[in-house]
C-alpha cells in the first residue's frame, strides 16, 4: 500500500496506463497551456508528487459559526474534504491535541510547508489591546502575522475576517479589524456572509484544489462565482416586487402568500450573495423563503445599516421614500427606478469601501 496519498501519476498507472502514456498526457497538457516542451518534465513532477494541501485554520474574535457552517457542507461532505482533499493541520475547533501539542501541529506546518500552505482565518483581530484576544499567551495580531508569513494565500472566512462583523459594529469597543486591514502583499479571498453558505465555502476550497489558482475576485476580494449577483436579483419572490405586492406586517395575508419582504426591511437589494441561487443547507431554503427579510449579512457594516425592520428608503443616502411607497401601491414602472437607485447606492457604498481600504493601505 502506498505510504502517500495517491498522486495523479499513481492514479493513472493504477488505471492501467504506462509511464509513457503519462508523459504523453503531460506533453498534451503542456501544449494546451502553451508551454515549451521543457515544461513537460515540470508538469510531470508536479503531478507525481502533489500532496494534500496543508491548511491552517486560525480562530480569533469569532463565534465559530463559520466552522459550523463549513461542517454543513454537502458536496463534498466535510469528512471527504478533511480526509481526502486537504490536510487540515490546525483548527482549534476539531483538532485532537490541545495546548503544547496543538502548538506543535501549528509550528510543524509553519516549518515544513513554508510557502506551501493555505491560511484560513475565522474572526477579526482586535487592535485596541493585544490582550483582547490571545492564544497560548500570544496576541491574535502576532499570530496572524506569523502564520501569514509563509502562506501562499489567505481565505478570510465570513464577515468577521472580511469586514469585522458584529464586534466591529459601532462603537467597535475592541478595535476589531478584518484581515485585509492587517495583512498586505498576499492574496486574500473574502468569503462573505454571517456565516458564509457551506456550499460556497466548500466551493472555494474545491476551486483552489481543482483549478490550482485563486478564483476571479471582485473589487472587495469576493469570488465572483458566488458574489456577483444581488440576493434581490436572484430572489424567487422578485416578481412580487416588480408587481408591487408586499408583505405589510409579519403573518398578514400577504405574508401567507409569500409576497415581497422589501417593506419589512429586506436588504436583498443591496446584498451580494448566493442565497437565492444555492440557498442554504443543501438548497433547503433561505431567509426570504422562510419569511424573514434578508439582514444583508454578506455586506460590510450591515449591523450599522439598521434598524433591520425599517425598509431601505428610510436610510440616509437613498432618499426615495416616496418612490417605494408608490411601488407599494402597484406603480410597477417606478419599481425600475427604485432598483436603479438601489444599484447606484450599492455602488456608492462599495466605492466608499474601496476608498477606506486604500486609506488603510497608505497607513
Amino acid at each position, binding site marked *: 500500500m502506498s505510504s502517500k496519498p495517491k498522486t495523479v501519476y499513481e492514479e493513472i498507472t493504477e488505471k492501467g496506463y504506462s509511464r509513457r502514456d503519462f508523459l504523453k498526457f503531460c506533453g498534451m497538457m503542456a501544449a494546451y497551456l502553451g508551454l515549451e516542451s521543457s515544461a513537460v518534465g515540470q508538469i510531470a513532477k508536479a503531478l507525481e508528487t502533489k500532496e494534500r494541501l496543508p491548511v491552517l485554520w486560525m480562530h480569533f474574535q469569532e463565534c465559530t459559526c463559520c466552522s459550523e457552517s463549513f461542517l454543513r457542507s454537502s458536496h463534498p461532505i466535510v469528512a471527504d474534504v478533511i480526509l481526502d482533499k486537504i490536510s487540515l493541520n490546525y483548527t482549534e475547533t*476539531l483538532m485532537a491535541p490541545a495546548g503544547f501539542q496543538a502548538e506543535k501541529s501549528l509550528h510543524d506546518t509553519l516549518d515544513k510547508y513554508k510557502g506551501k500552505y493555505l491560511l484560513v482565518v475565522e474572526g477579526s483581530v482586535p487592535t485596541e489591546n493585544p490582550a483582547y484576544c490571545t492564544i497560548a499567551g500570544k496576541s491574535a495580531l502576532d499570530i496572524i502575522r506569523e502564520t501569514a508569513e509563509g502562506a501562499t494565500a489567505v481565505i478570510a472566512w465570513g464577515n468577521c475576517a472580511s469586514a469585522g462583523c458584529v464586534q466591529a459594529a459601532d462603537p467597535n469597543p475592541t478595535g476589531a479589524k478584518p484581515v485585509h486591514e492587517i495583512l498586505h502583499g498576499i492574496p486574500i479571498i473574502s468569503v462573505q456572509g454571517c456565516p458564509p453558505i457551506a456550499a460556497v465555502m466548500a466551493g472555494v476550497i474545491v476551486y483552489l484544489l481543482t483549478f490550482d489558482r485563486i478564483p476571479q475576485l471582485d473589487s472587495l476580494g469576493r469570488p465572483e462565482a458566488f458574489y456577483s449577483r444581488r440576493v434581490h436579483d436572484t430572489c424567487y419572490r422578485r416578481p412580487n416586487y416588480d408587481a408591487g405586492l408586499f408583505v405589510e406586517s409579519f403573518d398578514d395575508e400577504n405574508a401567507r402568500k409569500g409576497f415581497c419582504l422589501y417593506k419589512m426591511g429586506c436588504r436583498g437589494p443591496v446584498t451580494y450573495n448566493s442565497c437565492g441561487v444555492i440557498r442554504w443547507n443543501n438548497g433547503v431554503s433561505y431567509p426570504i423563503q422562510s419569511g424573514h427579510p434578508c439582514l444583508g449579512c454578506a455586506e460590510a457594516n450591515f449591523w450599522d445599516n439598521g434598524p433591520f425592520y425599517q425598509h431601505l428608503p428610510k436610510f440616509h443616502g437613498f432618499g426615495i421614500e416616496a418612490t417605494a411607497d408608490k411601488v407599494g401601491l402597484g406603480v410597477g414602472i417606478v419599481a425600475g427606478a427604485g432598483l436603479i437607485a438601489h444599484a447606484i447606492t450599492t455602488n456608492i457604498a462599495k466605492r466608499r469601501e474601496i476608498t477606506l481600504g486604500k486609506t488603510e493601505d497608505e497607513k
Partner: protein
Amino acid sequence: MANRIVVDPITRIEGHLRVEAEIKDGKIVDAYSSGTMVRGIEIILKGRDPRDAWAFTERVCGVCTTVHALASVRTVENALDITVPPNAEMIRNMMFCAQYMQDHVVHFYHLHALDWVDLVSALKADPAETARIAQSISDWPKSSSGYFSDLKNRLLKFVESGQLGIFANGYWGHKAYKLTPEVNLIGVAHYLEALEWQKEIVKVHTIFGGKNPHPNYLVGGVPCAINIDENNALNSERLAYVGKLLNDAKTFIEQVYIPDLMTVASYYKNWTAIGGGLKNYMSYGDLPVNGFADVANFKIPRGIILGRNLSEVLPVDGTDPEQIQEYISHSYYEYNGGDGLGKHPWEGETNLNYTGPVPPYEYLNVEGKYSWLKTPRWKGNAMEVGPLARMLVGYASGRDEFKDIVGWALKTLDVPVDALFSTLGRTASRGLETKLISGWALEFYNTLLSNIKNGDSRTFNPDKWEPETWPEQAKGVGLSEAPRGSLAHWIVIKNKMINNYQLVVPSTWNGSPRDANGQRSAYEAALLGTPVDDPEKPLEILRTIHSFDPCIACAVHLYDEKGTYVHQINTF
C-alpha cells in the same frame, strides 16, 4: 512542590480557553480557568432597536446558534408584555430541540470522543469482531464486516499518508485509553457518520428560520407564515420535511448515540469518581407547552439543588436583585463602589480593566485578575449548570421521564446515583437528555399539526410590534436553557431603545474565575483531584473540561458606557 502546567489553547471547544493547573504526585491540586478573548457585544447593543437584539446576540455564538436569539426575543417580550401564539411556541421548541440534538451529538463525537477513543488503536481492529459488537449493541444498519473493513482501509491509507491533519499530535497510545480496537473502530465510524448526519437535523432551522447557522427569529412570534394552500409558505411539503428530519434524528440518537455512549461509559466507570466538583446545580427550565408564563408545565423543570441534596428543589427568580449577581474580583473589570461587590444584571456595570501580563506571556497572575469572564453567583453560591444540572433538577423534582431514564442508565452501567456527580455523569447526562428531547420534538410537531388542522395558523402577535405601543420605560428578563446550561438576558428599554443589555451565560457560570471569597467555579472545582499522567499530554484535563462542553465566546463580554477604552475606539 507543585508543578504548574498550562493548556492553551484548549481545543475541541468553542472559543478561547486557557487552563493553568498545579500538579502534585500526578494529580491536580489547584486549577485556574481563563477566557482569553473579548468582543464587546453589549456595548454595541446600546441605543439600538430592541427588536434587532436577537440578531446581535445570536452572533455571540455560532455553535449554540439560536439559543441567544431565543433568550433575546423572550427578554424583549417579557419587557413589553408580549405573548406569542401557540404555533410560534411549538416552532421555537422544535428549533430548540433541533439545536440540542445537533449540538450534543457533535459534542459527543467531534469534540469529546477523541478523549475516550484512540484513533490509532482502531487500525488494529478485526472488522468481523467489530461487526459482531456493533450488531450486539444496536439495530443500526451500517454494521457489517465489509463496512468496517472498508473504513479501516480508508483510515489506514489516511494514517500512512503521513498527513494526519486534525489528528496529528493527538494523544494516541496514552495509557488512559481503555477501549478495545474494535470499539475504537466503531467510534471512528460514527465520528464520520455523525459528521454527515448533523448537517441534516439543522435543516429544521433552515425551514423555519431560513438558514443555519444563525437562523432568523422574531420578537412576537416566528417569521415563517403557515398556509397549507400556498406554495410560498409553510405548507404540507415543508411540514412533512420537518417530520422526516425529526424522526430520522430520533433514530440516529436511539441507534447510534445512546448505544455508543453506554458502551464507551462501561469501559470508563472509574471516571464516575473523578471530576465531580461543585455540589450545587441550577436549571432555569425550558420548553414551554402552555405559554412561557406557565413555568410549572415546562418540559425541563426550573430549580436549584444545593449540596447535592436531591430531596429538595429550591426556586430561582431572575428578577430578584438578591439572587443572581456577578462578581469581578478576578476578572479584568472594575466596579464603582469596589471590586468586591456583586451586581444584579439590571444594575450591572462593567469597566474594562486589563491588568494581566502583556502578551506574549508565559503564566497568568492568578493572585490578581486572570480572566475576561465575570463570576456569577446565586445567593453567593457557585452553581454548576448544564445537562447534569438539568437531569438532577428533573430527577429531584420527581418528573417520571427524568427518573426513568436516569434509573435505566444507572442500572445499565450498574453504578449508584452518586456516580452522576462526576465527569462521566456529566457526559452521560448530555446523552440522556438528548434522548428525551428527541421524543419531545415529535410531540411539539404533532401539536403544531393539530393546531393547524383545528384552524389556527397564527405565528406572530402584531399587537406590540410598533414602538408607539411601548411604554416609556421597560425592563425584561429572558430565562432559558441553552445546551450548555442556564442562559439569561436582561434588558432595560428607555425611549424605545436599548438602554442596557446584559447576558449571563452557561460558560460564565461554569468557567468563571473564583469569587471574592475564593470560591471556585465549576471548571476549576471539577479539575481538583483529576489525575494527570503525562503533563505534555493532558488527556485527563481535556476529559473533565470537555465534559462541560465549554463555549467561551458566549462567556466573554464587556458592556460599559464609561470605560476608558470607549474613548479610544473613535479612531477606527
